[in-house]
C-alpha cells in the first residue's frame, strides 16, 4: 500500500550507485515545478504574512509587509492553551487509535492469512467509511452523541452520567471524533507491515524460551515498528491540525478548541491574517520537530 512508502527512509537509496543523468533530471522537472508552484509559493507567502503589520490608515483586515516578529510572541501568549491542547488531544487520539488498530490489523494481516478472501473483505470494511464524507460522518456522531440521543439518555437513566451532563462539546467528544476519524489511517500501514511479518521469527522467539507476551514485546512489536511509525505519523500530524472535530458545529465546545479552530477563526472571522499565519508556522515547526525526533528515536531504518 502507498502508506508503507511513508516510512521509507534513505538507507536503501544510499546503496544505489549515484549516476547523474540529464534524462533523470528532465524527468524530475515536472515534479520540481509542481512543488515550487504549489508548495513553496504558499509557504513563502504564509511566512511573509506572518510578519505583516496592520496598515496604518487601513480598514480592519488590511495589512502591509513588515518584519513584525512580535506577532509570534502575541499568538503564543494568546493561544498557548490551544496549542498545548491540540498536541495533547492529537497524542491521546493517536495512542487510542493505535490501541484499537493494532489488534485489528494483526487479525487481518496475520490471523486471517489463511483466508485471503476474508482478508480483503475486512480491508474493504476498514476503508468503507471513506465512501462517505468525513464531515457527514462526524455530523452523524454529533447526532448519535447529542443530549437527546438514545445513548446519552440511557446512560443518564442508569445514572452513569449526571442528569445535566453533556457529551458533545467536551474534550472527550473531540478526542473520540479524532480517534474515530483516523483509525483507518492507522490500520492500513499497520496492516501492510503485519501482513509481511515472518511468523518464523515468532517461532524462533518461543523456541528461545520467550513467553508469548515476551515474544510480542521483543519480536512482534519491534518488527512492526515501520507500520507503527507510519500509522502514528499519519494520525498525529493531521490530528494536531484538525479543525473539524473540535469545531463548535461538530463535536467541540468552547473548552475544547484546537489550534486549527483558532487559525480558521483568525483567517475567516477576525481577519487577523498575520496571527493565523504565525500560528500555522508554529504548528508546522512544532510538528516537524516532534516528528523528526520521533522517527530518529524509533530507529526503524534496518527493518525496511
Amino acid at each position, binding site marked *: 500500500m502507498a502508506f508503507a512508502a511513508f516510512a521509507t527512509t534513505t538507507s536503501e537509496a544510499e546503496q544505489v550507485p549515484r549516476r547523474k543523468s540529464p534524462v533523470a533530471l528532465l524527468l524530475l522537472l515536472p515534479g520540481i515545478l509542481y512543488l515550487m508552484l504549489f508548495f513553496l509559493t504558499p509557504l513563502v507567502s504564509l511566512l511573509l504574512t506572518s510578519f505583516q503589520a496592520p496598515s496604518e490608515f487601513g480598514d480592519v483586515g488590511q495589512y502591509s509587509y513588515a518584519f513584525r516578529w512580535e506577532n509570534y510572541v502575541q499568538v503564543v501568549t494568546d493561544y498557548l492553551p490551544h496549542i498545548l491542547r491540540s498536541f495533547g488531544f492529537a497524542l491521546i487520539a493517536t495512542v487510542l487509535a493505535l490501541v484499537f488498530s493494532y489488534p485489528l490489523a494483526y487479525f487481518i494481516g496475520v490471523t486471517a492469512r489463511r483466508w485471503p478472501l476474508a482478508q480483503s473483505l475486512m480491508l474493504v470494511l476498514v476503508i468503507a467509511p471513506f465512501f462517505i464524507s468525513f464531515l457527514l460522518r462526524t455530523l452523524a456522531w454529533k447526532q448519535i452523541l447529542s443530549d437527546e440521543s438514545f445513548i446519552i439518555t440511557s446512560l443518564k437513566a442508569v445514572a452513569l452520567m449526571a442528569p445535566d451532563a453533556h457529551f458533545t462539546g467536551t474534550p472527550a467528544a473531540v478526542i473520540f471524533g479524532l480517534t474515530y476519524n483516523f483509525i483507518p489511517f492507522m490500520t492500513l500501514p499497520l496492516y501492510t507491515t503485519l501482513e509481511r511479518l515472518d511468523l518464523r*521469527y515468532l517461532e*524462533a522467539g518461543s523456541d*528461545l524460551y*520467550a*513467553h508469548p507476551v515476551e515474544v510480542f514485546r521483543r*519480536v512482534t512489536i*519491534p*518488527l512492526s515498528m515501520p507500520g507503527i511509525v507510519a500509522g502514528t505519523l499519519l494520525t498525529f500530524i493531521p490530528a494536531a491540525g484538525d479543525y473539524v472535530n473540535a469545531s463548535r458545529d461538530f463535536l467541540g465546545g468552547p473548552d475544547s478548541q484546537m489550534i486549527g479552530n483558532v487559525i480558521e477563526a483568525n483567517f475567516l472571522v477576525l481577519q487577523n491574517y498575520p496571527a493565523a499565519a504565525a500560528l500555522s508556522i508554529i504548528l508546522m515547526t512544532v510538528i516537524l520537530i516532534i516528528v523528526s525526533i520521533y522517527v530518529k528515536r524509533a530507529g526503524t531504518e534496518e527493518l525496511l
Partner: protein
Amino acid sequence: MTTGAFAAQGADLELVGIQKRFPGFTAIEHLDLKIPAGSFFALLGPSGCGKTTTLRLVAGLEEPTAGRILIGGKDITGQKPYQRPVNTVFQSYALFPHMTVLENVAFGLRRRRIDEPVAKAHEALRLVELDHLAARKPQQLSGGQQQRVALARAIVNRPALLLLDEPLGALDLKLRRQMQLELKTIQEEVGLTFLHVTHDQEEAMTMADTVAVMNKGRIEQMGAPEELYELPKTAFVANFLGQSNLFTGPVIGSTSDAIAVAVAGQRIVVPAARAHRHAGEVTIGIRPEKLSLHLSAPADDPARNSMGPGRVIDVSFSGVSTQYLINVPRVGTLIVFAQNMAFGPVAGEGGEVWVSWDIKHGFGLEDEPGDLPKFDADTTTRSIAAQRRASLITELEEV
C-alpha cells in the same frame, strides 16, 4: 522458563506412537523413536517425508495428533515451546533482524534470566569464531556466518536436545563441508544430543552416529551409516542412500548360509544373513562400487557372482572413478563405479563386458517384489535442477 540453570548435559529423546495429521494429509503415520543422550542423530528423507514435521513436534511448534514425546524420561507432550529444554537451528536461521548478533545470541539466556548473558553470548560466538562480528546486524553477515550465529544462539542455552532443520541447505558445497566438520566438533565438545534433519544423504552419513531414513511418514530403516549403506533393508533405502543395482527373481535354492536366486537365467548367490527373505520372489541388490568389470567372460569362481555379457551404453569419467552404465539383456541397466587404476576408462561405449562381485557383498531386501518401485536414483543434472526448483518453490510458498 525461569529455571536459571543449564541442562547438565544432553538428554535422550523418546517418541512413542507419534502420529500427525493435517487437514487433508497425514504427515506422520506412526513413529517410535529413541535417541540416546549425547548422540548425533540424523533424520534423512526426501522432501515431504515428515522429517521436518517430526522436528517441529519435538520443538513444540506443532502438536501431535496422537502419541507422546519424552525428553530425559519426562513427558513434554503438553508443554509449550518456550517451556521445553530444546533449541532449534532453523532452516531459514530466523535471526532477529532488529537485534545485533550479540543480542540474538543472548536472547534465550535473558529470557531464562541466566547470569551474565553477555559474557556467555560472547563465549558462544567465540566457539563459532564470530565474536569479532558481535555488534553487526544479521543481515550484514554472509549466509555461512548467519548459520553459525543461529547455531551459537541455540547452543548457548545448553539445551538437552538441539534440533537442526537442514541448517546447511543454503550454503555452497565448500562451506557445507566445513560447517559439517565444525558442527560435528562442536557436538563432541559440548556433548549435547543433536537431532539433525536433512535430505542430503552424504551429510547425514558423514555427521551422524545413527541415521534414520524416513519415507512417507514412516521410518524405513535406522542404524549406523555403514550398516544402512552396506545392508539396506528396502529398495527405498538402497536407492536413497547412494545407488544400487537391484534384481528380482525366485529363490531356487537355499542352504543355511546362502540363498541362490535366478536372475534372467543366471544364478546369483546372496549370504543368508544378509537377506531378509529366504523364499519366493525376492529382490537382491549390489552397490555399484562393489562390481568389477571384465572385458572377457570371467572364470567360474564359487566365491563370486557374475553376470553378462552386457553392452556399455554410457561412460562418465569423474576423476577418482568412472561410472559405467551397462545394459544386460533381460536384466536391465547396471551401474558400475570403477576406480581409475589405469589411465582413462577400461571399456569404451558399445563394448561388450561382464561384471562380477564377491557374493559376500550382495544383500536381499525386505520389500515384496510386487510393489517394488522400479526406479533408479536419478542423478542427472537436469533432475537435480528440477528437484532444487521444486523445493525452492515450496519454500517460497511457505514464506
